[in-house]
């Protein structure tokens, strides 16, 4: 971690957007949002509101000077509603007032008249109605239809995953001020400064060079500020432009939760077939992605789902279909993992389904089918440097998985002396049946379940969760970055890139890259805010690529400057510049320090009119994808890993704990071990939350019910497993990586999926013969209802 950044954090001295001192005259904005999920916008009556104290302006779509549109992939998202309302929380008007309280008071007084239309909230329903964001896509490998007859056993089922609120602790926020030449300067809590710049320019009808966007740091983002920071920045800019004064807009927690998109819920159908040994021969899957009311990044997310359809496994015959379904929810958006976790959940569910059908441990099927060197992914790329088996096997040894499994089985058996009898009773039932409805009898709804829960109360479960995650933006053109590096005449170094610091430690990594490349101490290097005037046309800090892309660009820029300085040193020392090196602030010739230090060299080079600045550009080599064939090499490389997760369920009350997550992770050669460990541990807990207690719920009218921290619960310290152990694969250099490292941001989140399956094993132990549905999050409510045979499938 950047000690500089953390020093500020621990002292409360780091300034987030809402902490910045405001220039005199700054006004405050509040948003009037739709209360309807779908309807005709008949009118906006701001008369009463505009006479309230402090109100400066109330703006609607008619006041947008440029294009009333912020959709990036598809122009389907107006800045302010006109015509049709598409979701609860859609911005309809902007109030600007002297204080935030006055702005909110007036926003509440604005009357938005809507003629309601029927709303669709469910992805399958939207799919059936043909309400799609884009045409469906299909990835295929081999001949799945021909493979089914050759399968020894086939299982089919459904899998569902819910949404996930990002819950960055810093809410969406922006500040905008008019510039003298009619442009606008924007501070935005965004992962995508260029995205905000483009969006603001479009809405205000300005050329991009008139819009400056600056980002110092984010209080968490997790994808939620990749596309969805633009709306608020553009609204602030609209207010600033209209009133000629700075305008600030900071969403309250409740507004943020209600109005912004989440991780996409998915509903999926799968069919899987294995041969007699347990090798997966065929896998067919259909995904219904709940995109919400606008495209946002849904198609890109859906594409990543398809890329990760087979998870960490090789399957020779695959057909994966994906539908991005338009519903009347706020547009769902990027969220750590970007569609890959949803795909991984389905293949893991399918493997459990087939394993249970043939009565074998899931781990056997998993291990047998792990990706090996040269295996082909459904998109045509082949696994290079495959480490799936290595991670799995090391995890099994390191964490004594066999021993743990036996201990858990023994504990469960001891807890449940009646198990053999119950299992025998249930064996007669169709193993494919979703749940054993008769386990508790069909009698009085609530009397029987009590009697059916064996004592003592606790059952345990274990699951293995292998991961394979492709690194690169799947949109090839986004895999580029630039760096602007200045060496100042006193030897200090400033680095500017497109990478946004949001807690992942990318600035510390950039600092390190510059320091290593220039052979100086990190204390000489400062990483600047992310600013569109210094780095243009940047990709968002997303897809785990922030350090890779911007680090490579930084390295190239530093190499350029180092090359010029080597020349200057060689001239002075009378040697070849090839013999010159820098280390620890000293100049070396043929590896030996000479009587010249970095500061002197820089000072002299400057006097000698050597260019001490460099701008470099990096584009990931060797990648590309042909969407007409759905084949190509979309990823620079893959990240592998394997986790073992243990859980305990209270069979009486349906409550549970995730006891331990232990993982062997392939991080290449770690660039910043403390930061990488933090990313892995944090990702795991966020993944566990998504799978267990984080339950995004809307009412029948499409309004979010879980819109506060009182109703939406993320893991707290007590919920987070006490034992989280992440071991990084040793001797795992990644040739071609940034200093042989691998990206770390998203992949570890997928280990959290193991939490679902460990819990599910514990549930199965509590109700032998039962088949818990593949529905996440597995809340305590779902767990108890299933244990009691009262869930939808079992009732």
């Amino acid at each position, binding site marked *: 971690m950047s000690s500089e950044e953390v020093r500020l954090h621990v002292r409360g001295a780091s300034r987030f957007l*809402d902490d910045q001192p405001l220039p005199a005259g700054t006004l405050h904005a509040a948003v009037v949002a739709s209360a309807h999920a779908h309807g005709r916008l008949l009118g906006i009556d701001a008369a009463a509101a505009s006479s309230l104290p402090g109100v400066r302006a109330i703006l609607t779509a008619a006041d947008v000077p440029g294009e009333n549109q912020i959709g990036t992939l598809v122009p389907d998202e107006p800045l302010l509603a006109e015509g049709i309302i598409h979701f609860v929380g859609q911005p309809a008007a902007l109030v600007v007032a002297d204080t935030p309280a006055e702005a909110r008071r007036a926003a509440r007084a604005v009357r938005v008249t809507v003629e309601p239309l029927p709303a669709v909230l469910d992805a399958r329903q939207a799919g059936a109605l043909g309400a799609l964001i884009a045409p469906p896509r299909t990835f295929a490998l081999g001949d799945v239809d021909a493979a089914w007859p050759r399968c020894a056993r086939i299982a089919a089922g459904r899998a569902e995953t819910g949404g996930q609120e990002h819950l960055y602790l810093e809410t969406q926020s922006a500040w905008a001020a008019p510039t003298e030449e009619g442009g606008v300067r924007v501070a935005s809590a965004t992962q995508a400064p260029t995205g905000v710049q483009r969006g603001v320019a479009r809405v205000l009808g300005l050329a991009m060079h008139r819009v400056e966007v600056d980002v110092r740091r984010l209080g968490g983002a997790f994808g939620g500020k990749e596309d969805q920071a633009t709306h608020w920045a553009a609204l602030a800019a609209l207010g600033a432009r209209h009133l000629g004064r700075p305008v600030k807009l900071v969403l309250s927690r409740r507004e943020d939760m209600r109005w912004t998109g989440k991780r996409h819920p998915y509903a999926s159908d799968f069919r899987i077939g294995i041969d007699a040994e347990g090798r997966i021969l065929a896998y067919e899957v259909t995904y219904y992605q709940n995109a919400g009311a606008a495209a946002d990044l849904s198609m890109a997310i859906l594409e990543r789902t398809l890329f990760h359809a087979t998870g960490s496994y090789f399957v020779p015959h695959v057909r994966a279909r994906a539908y991005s379904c338009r519903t009347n929810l706020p547009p769902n958006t990027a969220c750590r993992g970007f569609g890959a976790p949803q795909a991984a959940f389905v293949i893991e569910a399918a493997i459990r389904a087939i394993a249970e059908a043939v009565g074998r441990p899931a781990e056997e099927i998993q291990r047998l089918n792990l990706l090996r060197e040269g295996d082909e992914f459904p998109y045509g790329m082949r696994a290079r440097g495959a480490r799936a088996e290595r991670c799995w096997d090391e995890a099994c040894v390191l964490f004594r998985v066999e021993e743990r499994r036996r201990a858990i089985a023994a504990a469960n058996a001891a807890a449940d002396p009646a198990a053999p009898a119950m299992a025998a009773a249930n064996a007669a039932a169709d193993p494919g049946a979703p749940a054993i409805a008769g386990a508790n009898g069909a009698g009085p709804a609530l009397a029987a379940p009590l009697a059916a829960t064996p004592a003592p109360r606790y059952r345990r479960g274990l699951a293995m969760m292998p991961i394979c995650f492709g690194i690169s933006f799947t949109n090839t053109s986004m895999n580029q970055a630039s760096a602007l590096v200045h060496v100042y005449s006193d030897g200090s170094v400033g680095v500017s890139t497109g990478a946004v610091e949001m807690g992942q430690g990318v600035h510390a990594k950039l600092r390190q890259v510059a320091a290593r490349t220039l052979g100086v101490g990190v204390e000489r290097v400062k990483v600047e805010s992310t600013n569109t005037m210094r780095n243009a046309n940047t990709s968002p800090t997303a897809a785990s690529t922030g350090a890779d892309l911007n680090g490579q660009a930084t390295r190239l820029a530093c190499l350029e400057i180092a090359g010029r300085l080597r020349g200057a040193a060689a001239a002075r020392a009378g040697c070849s510049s090839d013999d010159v090196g820098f280390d620890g602030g000293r100049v070396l010739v043929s590896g030996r320090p000479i009587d010249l230090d970095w500061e002197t060299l820089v000072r002299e080079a400057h006097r000698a009119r050597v260019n001490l600045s460099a701008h470099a550009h990096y584009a990931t080599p060797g990648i590309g994808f042909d969407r007409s064939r759905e084949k190509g090499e979309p990823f620079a490389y893959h990240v592998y890993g394997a986790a073992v997760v243990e859980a305990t369920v209270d069979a009486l009350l349906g409550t549970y704990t995730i006891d331990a997550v232990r993982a062997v992770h392939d991080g290449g050669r770690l660039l910043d071990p403390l930061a990488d460990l933090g990313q892995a541990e944090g990702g795991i807990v966020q993944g566990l939350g998504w799978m267990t207690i984080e339950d995004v719920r809307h009412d029948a009218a499409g309004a979010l019910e879980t819109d506060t921290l009182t109703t939406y619960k993320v893991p707290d310290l007590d919920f987070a497993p006490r034992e989280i152990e992440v071991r990084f694969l040793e001797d795992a250099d990644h040739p071609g990586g940034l200093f042989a490292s691998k990206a770390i941001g998203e992949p570890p989140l997928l280990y959290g999926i193991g939490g679902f399956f460990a819990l599910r094993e514990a549930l199965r132990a509590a109700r032998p013969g039962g088949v818990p549905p593949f529905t996440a999050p597995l809340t305590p409510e779902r767990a108890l209802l299933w244990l009691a045979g009262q869930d939808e499938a079992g009732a």
Partner: protein
Amino acid sequence: MIPLLLNDAEIALDLPAGRRALDALRGTLRLTGTKEGCREGDCGACCVLWGVPESGAVVYRVVPACLLPCGELHGTHLVTIEGLSPAGGSHTGLVRGGPARAAGLGNGLTPVQEAFLEFGAAQCGFCTPGFVVALTGYLLSAESLDPLEAEEAVAGQLCRCTGYSSVRRALARLCEQLDGDACARTAGDPVERVRWLVAEGVLPEAFLEAPRRLAALARRAGSASLAPPAPLAARSPAAPPMPCAPAAPPAPDAPPIPCAPAAPPMPCAPPAPPAPASRGPRIVGGATDLYVQRPEEIEDASDLLLLSRRADLRGIRVEAGRCRIKGAATIEELRRCRTLRAVLPALDGWLRRVASLPVRARATLAGNLVNASPIGDLAILLLALDAEVTLEGGGAWAPAAGPPMGRPSLAGAPMESARRTMALRAFFHAYKQTARRSGEIIVEIAFDLPGADTRLSFQKVSCRPRLDIASVNGAARIAACDGHIVRAELSAGGVAPVPLYLARASAHLAGRRLSAAAVREAAEIADGEISPIDDIRGSALYKRLLCRRILYAHFLECFPEAMGGDLP
């Protein structure tokens, strides 16, 4: 004006007493190290240290600034993350003497901050100040240095980045490196504790002077007590002290305490118009529910009756087999009550599940009852304990303009202050409706301690195991003798419009043999007493199931041997 010691500066806040301390800090005072994450006390990002003078010392508690009325700050020491950070310490880059030094940049961090730095326990940094404050508060009050207790102290701090592992490592290190003997030696002695922590570099030296400065502050404010000025009283100088307040209100003509040099650069918001006088002041207990549920009733209000300021409402007494909890006693005070802990060792664990430490430090038991949430944890526990509540006041409130009908009553005080005592089981009438009359306050909650033949159980099931609102909670007090139930008292929350005493199920069990069959019958009866609804905490089906199983869990935990292996 609200005089207080803010970090190391004496200031006076010109804000409504109901304004959140968080808004005063971030808005008026521009101290932005305290972060706003939720404004509901659910994230901990805005935690501050709140030091209240108590018998010559200052006792510090960690509280969420978003739930702390500015009125409570009167005469207290408010410490933010800025006040905990040693001068300098924000910069590790090249410092060339001149400008950086002049700006006060150095390298000092407290051991708490160092531990977070060393273990990477801060990622995005937004939650970090809250963690540092909460841990510092732990060190101020810890009886011993125990990593698990330190975890408990930060259990209410949400972090979305780290997964908490690095936090655990940081506080384990902290407990290891600090002097455990010194901690034990200074336990219960706030003056010595502060001295030790200043010596360790955990606290800045300003803490040493806080008791003296607060005393001086109180003297200058013209009052020996720290009771905040009652605005209405201030407008009628001739008025006698409020009948229920032990201490005199400050003299109305006391000179305002000038703002410290670091005075607010931003103009203070104008105070809101006073609430209609006929309603009397807004009664405020811990305000932990009020700010969440009806913020508009308090945020702009100047006229607050802060129960925490009434000495007669403080404390918990255990005597003659009866526990008496005063109306302003907090949940944390109850948890820390040693006498009660000796009798009811399980209470500690139950109360930890109710809310995070910063919220427990503010939330009162009486408030939990008055709020009348059907799912109130304390209400459920106290129902099973057959608690009695004593109410005082009520009736009409005198208008502020002057004593009505020529009676020399203090404006803003209740016209009558009759006391009445009733069974808690008769207190809850309907959803959010209780027997409490307008203006009445709960002055005492009392219950008999369980005898040797009596066992207690409290169960709570929520989506997140801790620090969440229950889907269903339940409590039981069961007296048993020779394998028979002498008396059983069962309550359940989240299953009716009110916190529910399960009268019929309880009655059914009396005199029956302790057996799973009896419990099953009682569960059947309870199922007929409850009327849960589908809501965000769970479906009605789920709640019925939970109510039943919680009932079983009571007996399983209290009488495992009698429940046997055959059931449920």
